[in-house]
């Protein structure tokens, strides 16, 4: 078919690459949420303050987030190699890709969190304070539950972005489907491997998006 011969594909390698991609995406999404969610909450809480010190904190965090978001991921990946080595002890394999993936995606997710929190009705927050809620209670019991659909949508977008980031991290020895597609398809002209690897990534993204949308719908009460 179109001069392609799929019989040559090494399915064990394909399976391993798929597994690696899922692992990279999964762990980095987990850590991205663990770091990005509080960061987003801090951005949201500090953005509206009249206090000069708090305003300053916001400006500093916001500036750092913007820097991390403006550096192209490939450059971030390479420049973070020493730091990666320091954190996880290696720059290779699945483990070696997680720190740069998280550092690249967390600021992005933090902005998405900040935006979803801003969508929460200010009146509801005011009502909670009027009932004697502390700031912590407002965050846990009002902001997070009320913005849950938005947060899930943000996590979905982040997960999809991470899938494409994993492909780039493949270039510096990370492994996974993207790495397979580049190594075989691009460097060795084995189109078949590239097509299947890309196809798998497309399927993965579709599944992520559908699952995310379904969760968003499930939690939307408006």
């Amino acid at each position, binding site marked *: 078919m179109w001069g392609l011969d799929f019989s040559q594909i090494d399915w064990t390698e394909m399976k391993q690459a798929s597994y690696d991609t899922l692992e990279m995406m999964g762990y980095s999404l987990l850590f991205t949420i663990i770091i990005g969610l509080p960061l987003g909450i801090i951005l949201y809480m500090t953005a509206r303050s009249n206090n000069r010190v708090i305003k300053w904190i916001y400006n500093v965090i916001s500036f750092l987030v913007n820097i991390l978001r403006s550096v192209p991921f490939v450059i971030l990946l390479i420049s973070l190699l020493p730091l990666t080595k320091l954190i996880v002890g290696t720059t290779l394999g699945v483990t070696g890709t997680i720190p740069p993936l998280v550092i690249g995606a967390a600021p992005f997710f933090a902005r998405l969190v900040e935006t979803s929190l801003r969508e929460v*009705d200010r*009146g*509801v927050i*005011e*009502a*909670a*304070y*009027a*009932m*004697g*809620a*502390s700031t912590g*209670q407002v965050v846990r*019991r*009002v902001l997070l*539950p*009320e913005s*849950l659909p938005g947060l899930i949508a943000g996590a979905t977008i982040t997960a999809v972005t991470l899938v494409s980031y994993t492909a780039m991290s493949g270039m510096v020895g990370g492994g996974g489907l993207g790495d397979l597609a580049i190594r075989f398809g691009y460097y060795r002209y084995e189109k078949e491997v590239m097509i299947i690897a890309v196809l798998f990534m497309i399927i993965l993204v579709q599944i992520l998006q559908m699952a995310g949308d379904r969760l968003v719908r499930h*939690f939307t*009460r*408006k």
Partner: protein
Amino acid sequence: MIELKDITKIYGSKAKATTALKDLNLTVEQGEIFGVIGHSGAGKSTLIRCINLLERPSSGEVWVGGRNLTSLGKRELQLQRRRIGMIFQHFNLLSSATVYDNIAFPLKLAGVDKAAVKSKVEELLKLVGLEAHSGKYPSQLSGGQKQRVGIARALANDPDVLLCDEATSALDPQTTDSILKLLLDINRKLGLTILLITHEMHVIQSICDRVAVIHAGGIVEQGPVAEVFLKPKHPVTKEFISREVAGSAPAQLQAQGTGTAGEGQAQGSPVYRLTCLGDHTYSTDLSEAVLRTGVQFAILQGTVSTIKEIPYSQLTVRFTGQPEAVELTVNRLRERHIDVEVIG
């Protein structure tokens, strides 16, 4: 119960500062329903937010239930706020929580145990008549039902005071009346002190005991509703009332009088305003009086209605007849506790 002392609230800083409230003093007694009426921008929203310190006044003191809230620390203020319920124009319910969880929300904030939460929420659902809707989300409710949830939520911690921030402004007239009735019931059943702000005289007239008129950040007139309503002094008050009761400017009345009566005899005849409050409203005092004295009268304008379930009437009449007979009529009416004012 609530005492505001010399409250001033200034927004913004120096050059762009706007004064929302200026040296405002207000006292609300235990168990009364106190209404504050004003146009948008008059400062009433700021006023009600100053009571639970959602807005901190720039200067002055806020006392609720004998405690100076302005002197409290963060934690103490949070505890005191539980003694003050609040309902809002746009209800401000958690959209992600059911009716049950919305009402349970303040109890959970206060750390009440699960069994106690359940019995309290069920009691409140019954009080506001929403037993059948406990598992619904706010988006599935009508405006009136949402406000009922808001009221139940505000009452969850058995507060001493209920603040109503334009609580009926987003509702249709029928629903407004049912919510007002519920507030009145609660006030009577629980002895709850209610402070409400509104721009509708109708709300004041329906349930309030006392009213204050706020204008440009200050209170321009206050007193018992019947007094303020029937004898408004400040132009802003008059304007609010004239929107409720069709126009009451004397000049306009005289013009009308000339138009309808027309004859030279009626021209010089005095115009009186007769005000009746309470049981006298539906009496035959006026007809008895004119039958005795032989004076004729024409009604130029009139209202017969109620102020917080108390009937009242206010008639603008022109008496025609011998001046002595007219005076006799007036005296007779006064003897019958009808308030008579010469207005033209």
